């Protein structure tokens, strides 16, 4: 078990190092950071000062090490747009993003998991077919189309809800529904197939042929086993709480991290982009770690290192 945890931690660390390396390489490949960040018309003295302060006059390997050191000390650079630390800018936006994505996550779970389980238990019925059609549609309809469709119906035609901004609780409803519906479809489809796979296993047939009531079989044998793959997907959804809202925040002019990212990319505000990249990577990696440990707790077979070699 200790070896299992150590292997996972090592992998997580390697992923973070790769992300930082990616940011470093991309930053260097994209040209002279000084002219990119200060603009081509910056005075030469400013460029020289910038190069000195960022260590750009040093050899590449030294820069690489310094870059790591700075990042692990929490120094993520200044936003070129308003001259404040990028980290502060991003942190300010996090509550707004979570205010959308956490309710949306609950919406996904509340719709997707029961629908998937119910569809699996009643395979081939009208309900099951509806879930499958919804799941396929949920994949084919991109979130911005769904968002604009909802705006068209509920804001433009019916006038019930506002179409953008973050002034009242009502403003959050359409974005949450957009995020929730798309994810719920995928989650329902996934839960359904996990559940169907478990229901096809011999031990389920054994349990029900022993005379156990079907409800008991489902509750005590099928659900816990189907939960294992589903937890992975939920972990991924939690990991994408911050990144998942990029498009939807933009449609609804919601002042969260996703919208900040889009604006920063459009303005080539590199410090902010890099900060969000690292933040997202860290969240993903952390939630993957937690999922791996949960996996270990849910599936006793994995506790004994069977997965460590995989």
């Amino acid at each position, binding site marked *: 078990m200790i070896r299992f945890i150590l292997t996972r931690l090592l992998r997580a660390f390697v992923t973070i190092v790769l*992300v930082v390396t*990616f940011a470093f390489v991309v930053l260097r490949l994209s040209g002279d950071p000084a002219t990119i960040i200060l603009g081509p018309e910056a005075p030469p003295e400013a460029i020289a000062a910038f190069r000195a302060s960022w260590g750009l006059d040093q050899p590449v390997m030294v820069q690489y090490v310094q870059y790591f050191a700075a990042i692990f000390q929490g120094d993520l650079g200044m936003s070129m747009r308003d001259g404040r630390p990028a980290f502060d800018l991003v942190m300010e936006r996090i509550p707004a993003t979570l205010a959308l994505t956490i309710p949306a996550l609950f919406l996904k779970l509340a719709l997707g998991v029961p629908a998937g389980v119910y569809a699996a238990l009643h395979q081939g019925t009208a309900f099951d077919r509806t879930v499958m059609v919804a799941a396929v549609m949920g994949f084919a309809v*991109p979130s*911005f189309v769904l968002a*604009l469709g909802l705006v068209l119906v509920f804001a433009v035609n019916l006038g019930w809800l506002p179409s953008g901004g973050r002034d009242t609780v009502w403003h959050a409803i359409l974005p949450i529904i957009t995020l929730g519906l798309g994810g719920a479809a995928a989650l329902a489809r996934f839960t359904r197939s996990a559940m169907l796979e478990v229901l096809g296993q011999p031990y389920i047939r054994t349990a029900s042929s022993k005379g156990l009531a079907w409800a008991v079989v489902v509750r005590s044998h099928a659900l816990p086993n189907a939960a294992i793959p589903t937890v992975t997907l939920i972990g991924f959804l939690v990991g994408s709480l911050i990144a998942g809202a990029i498009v939807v925040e933009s449609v609804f002019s919601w002042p969260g991290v996703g919208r900040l*990212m889009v604006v*920063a*990319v459009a303005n080539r505000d590199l410090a902010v982009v890099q900060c969000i990249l690292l933040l997202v990577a860290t969240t*993903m990696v952390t939630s993957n770690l937690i999922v791996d440990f949960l996996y270990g707790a849910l599936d006793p077979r994995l506790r004994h290192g069977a997965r460590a070699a995989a």
Partner: protein
Amino acid sequence: MTDIANATPAPALRLPRMPWYVAFGMGWIIFVLAVALLADVITPYVFTAMDLKYRLVPPFQTWAHPLGTDELGRDVLSRLIVSIRISLLIAFGATVISAVLGTTLGFLAAHFRGIVEQAVLMLADFQAALPFLILALSVLAFFGNSLPLLIGLMGLYGWERYARIARGLAISASAQGYATAITQLGATPQRVYLRHILPNIASTLIVSMTLIFPEVILLESGLSFLGLGVQPPMTSLGNMVGYGREYITRAAWIMLCPATVIVLTTLAVSLVGDWLRDRLDPTLG
């Protein structure tokens, strides 16, 4: 022994029976492909041409502009046709790049094993661990934007899935013996991989392509919608939706036309892909 000799080989090309929705998917794919290929011939107007007498004409009002016009009086149908061409071009280019890249890396991992394999798997883990949209946005922020860059960037999408499949299948092909046998005949590794292993795993790779293709369309249209993908005056489906969003209250058709095409196309390709997977390769996830 002779009775085997008389057995007729299965006809190579017999269209299998397909459900109606797969037939619909096939039909739609053929339709958009035809539109994309014939775009130059069938567009009624040059897609950037403005006709200020006809601004914000709704669809089905005049034969001159069957799908209406936008704020600048540009013909929505012409723009839609060109957008289909650009979006499909990007998605095809990206899917091919990603399949070639992933398959090559997978083969290299299977051939050299050891450090090469570990490096490929580590990169694949890294790619799978991060939402691609974030990576794509970061690259666009650093490098700015151009059509070749956009295709190349999208070409990084999904490579890790091809790599894993190609690696796994190549390793099992070697274990099965025919790869070893052909190596023992004196064939170069290129010959073993390209002439023997690749045709043997092609159906699995093609199914994977049909599963990844719609995701690439969605990704490109998402980026273009945000204004970070295809740049004006060039247009793409996502781009049109992004532009049409400004006129959602007055001229929803500008946005609805491309949105419908996006949904129908991803739907069609994924229906066909799912069906192909079930028929050809039930082992794929």
